């Protein structure tokens, strides 16, 4: 009886493993929710400025439009990510290959990492979730330096900040990262109390429920 049960358990385990391994393979691929997909081979050209934008990884977006010599990527996703944000980017007399981006719709922070070829000008708007003009001290434009150190460029050392939070970079080639740290208070002030403090409310509730369950168990054990 015991040997039979053991065999049944093993058979069930093997079956479960086979199902788990085969299941993803037999499921058909799904349509991407976004309507524009791209690969590293895709070039978003800007003929008027002799520039182009590309991505170093596969990705998609709900739309990719060229407006005023600037490519606007809405609901951008990279490598099956969640929606990362809306990116507006342009390049003049240069090419820009983007390999990392986060516009961050939850906070007003954002970052972009790219490789620039050609001595030209690039404009980047990370699609920050803020309408207020940011200060240059909130931005980090970095390039690799000698010995593997990171070089932080101060404003006007190859970049400037426009009032609409667009960063204009001139004369920088190679790897570059553009990062915005937000020190503004995240906009939870308009939320109701229970939403603005949902996490601690949930934690207190979980703790209270745990204690309640324990007390019930103790009472039952005593009985």
């Amino acid at each position, binding site marked *: 009886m015991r040997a039979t049960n*053991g065999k049944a358990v*093993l058979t069930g*385990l093997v079956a479960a493993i086979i199902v788990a391994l085969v299941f993803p393979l037999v499921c058909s691929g799904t349509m991407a929710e976004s309507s524009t997909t791209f690969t590293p081979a895709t070039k978003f050209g800007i003929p008027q400025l002799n520039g182009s934008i590309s991505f170093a990884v596969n990705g998609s977006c709900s739309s990719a439009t060229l407006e005023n010599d600037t490519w606007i990527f809405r609901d951008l996703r990279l490598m099956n990510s969640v929606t990362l944000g809306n990116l507006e980017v342009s390049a003049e007399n240069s090419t820009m290959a983007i390999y*990392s981006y986060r516009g961050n719709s939850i906070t007003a922070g954002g970052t972009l990492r790219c490789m620039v070829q050609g001595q030209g000008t690039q404009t980047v708007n990370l699609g920050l979730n803020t309408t207020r003009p940011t200060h240059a*001290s909130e931005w980090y434009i970095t390039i690799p330096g000698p010995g593997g150190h990171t070089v*932080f460029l101060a404003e006007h050392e190859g970049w400037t900040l426009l009032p609409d939070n667009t960063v204009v970079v001139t004369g920088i080639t190679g790897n570059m990262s553009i990062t915005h740290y937000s020190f503004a208070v995240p906009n939870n002030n308009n939320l109701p109390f229970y939403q603005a403090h949902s996490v*601690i409310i949930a*934690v207190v509730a979980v703790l209270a429920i745990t204690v309640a369950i*324990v007390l019930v*168990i103790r009472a039952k054990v005593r009985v």
Partner: protein
Amino acid sequence: MSWINDPATTIVLGYVLIVAVGIILILKLSKDKTRKISTLRLFIQGAAVVGVFMGLIIGPFNKPGTLFYPLGISPRDRLVGAGFLGNQFPDGISLPILACYYPNGRTVTCAIWQLQAYIFPFWNYPRGYNVNYSTSGLEKIGIVMGLTVTAAIILGRSFCGWICPFGLYQDALTRVRKSARLRHLSFSQKTNTALGQSRYIIIAVFMILSVIFASYTIFGAEIIPGIKLGGPEGTEAGIVSNINEPFCLVCPMRPLCIIIEVAIGQMNWHYISQIVYGPGWTTGFYLTSINLAILAAITILALAYRRFWCRICPLGGLTALFSSFTPFKQIALTKLQKDEYKCTKCGVCKRVCPTQATAMYEKKGGDVTESRCMLCARCVEICPYEGALKMTFAGKTVVKSRNWLQENKADSQQND
């Protein structure tokens, strides 16, 4: 369902499946009754390390060209942090294990780091290292304590025995020692007791230090110079750039994490220093030397004394506070229980205990969980008297001692 084709989700589901299958196989197939629980515990420890640091493989810190970059964005970004806990609590779920936040992609995070960081330098929202907080330090500390107390009530110090990655490191060192056929050393009971009490002193000291560093932010008074928060990260002077989270400067887990990450190419080696730019560079290396020296010392001590760090770990002390002492002891769900009528006082339980706990030997019966006990169940596993010791959860027996001497004898007679 796009998640089906998402490699990160596939990896997580595969991981869960492998862990479940592994547990079942060990329980069903393990023959040695004196090693079954230990084998299971080793497996769960290994699985926990993979789970805790899953963000290392499929996390937000992957860069193009690194080994795991093609796996994309981690499920953490969908569930925890920005997507789920939002900017109220983006640093991951607090658990009472040494799990440094930066390698694991903030899925679960060491509660000690969070307690320190939310006192200083993140008392006032919204500052953070590339994260924004919409909650004050007090609220964030409340969340950490709530999660820690809940975890302690549910599982007690079994986090230390079964899940903590540094516990696995020490157990690996124990196996290294055993393979060299060297006997472990033991402390006297007086010394061991003092070590256990030092945990509470350690955590108190570092929390007080954090409050001192945060004095300007919290009280508006600069108790020691250089603690005013300055401009953006990298431009601040003084203490805030060098000595925030003071316990992390002496915790052995931090350099271990960084060394492993650097070794597999997932972190820039500059992060070995506490600060990677500006005038603090030298200070950072000096602090790092202390960090590395402590890791070396703990490694040697853990080779000689089983689970040495666990005897002084402040995080273990914090967990013990909320599971082994009144009133939490009364409501803790995971306990070690003893049946005094079945115990013959053979003493084998206290001989095998890695932390030299003695309550299961000295106490008469009932709940014998003590603050030094990390609920590893080794005593239960080795006790040769049926039901003398058992580990219970919510009053139900999870594992109990077996009369393995008689069972082994019966098995060998049957084979003959």
